């Protein structure tokens, strides 16, 4: 399996699946200046993250450049079981995207 920009972990605990994801991304807000040139560093950040499981969207998130570099996202849902696949995808303001599939532990 090709290495993904997303590290996805999902674990069941008392019928609740806890999802934790870490995405490798610069998350440039567009407000920062390059210290050497004084020019603005163009905005480059993830705008949307979606997590799917069992044919359902469990979470969709809209992000801004105000989310830290290499964003960490965590949430919980009911209705998942150990061994089932779970998928997370992201898309950024430049149209780049990535997705990863993992199994619930």
């Amino acid at each position, binding site marked *: 399996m090709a290495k993904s920009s997303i*590290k996805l972990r999902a674990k069941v605990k008392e019928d609740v699946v806890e999802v934790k994801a870490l995405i490798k991304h610069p998350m440039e807000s567009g407000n920062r200046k390059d210290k050497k040139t004084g020019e603005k560093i163009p905005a480059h950040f993830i705008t949307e993250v*979606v997590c799917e499981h069992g044919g359902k969207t469990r979470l969709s998130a809209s992000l801004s450049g105000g989310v830290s570099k290499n964003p960490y*996202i965590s949430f*919980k849902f009911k209705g998942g079981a150990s061994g089932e696949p779970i998928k997370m995808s992201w898309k950024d303001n430049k149209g780049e*995207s990535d*997705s990863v599939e993992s199994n619930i532990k």
Partner: protein
Amino acid sequence: MQTNIKRRTFLKGSAASGIMGAAITAGLATPQALLAEWNEAAFKEKDLNAAIKAMIGSESSEESDKIHIKAPDIAENGGVVPVSITSDIEGTTDILILAPNNPVPMVAAFTLGEGAQAFARTNIKMGKTGDVVAVIKAGDKAYTAKKAVKVTIGGCGG
């Protein structure tokens, strides 16, 4: 917490998987159709209330003690401020995280899917000391809570 992923090792591991990996898998990804529309207006709005309105359509929000914000009192690094929001409000569908003192107040908006619990956690940037504002949408109502976070520069403490 036992279930907590060790963030340091986690980061180290992901540093190894480079942009190339992302580029390769990007070709295989077909999530575009499923992704919600990014609300550009809400993420450009400089005014807190206008940003909330643009995101969830609510003119006003009611303060609620059923919203729990977990964030540090003092953040030594404004670049990474861990924020988690839990809502005890029945019918919570959306969780918004805002930082009014940031150039763009709307930081993140989570729309809960089927079975999702009213909880979201992420790390946000805070340019300076200020509030972290959480807004919860439940039905056609909006509720809000805030927590002050002091941002220190250079980690000298407060």
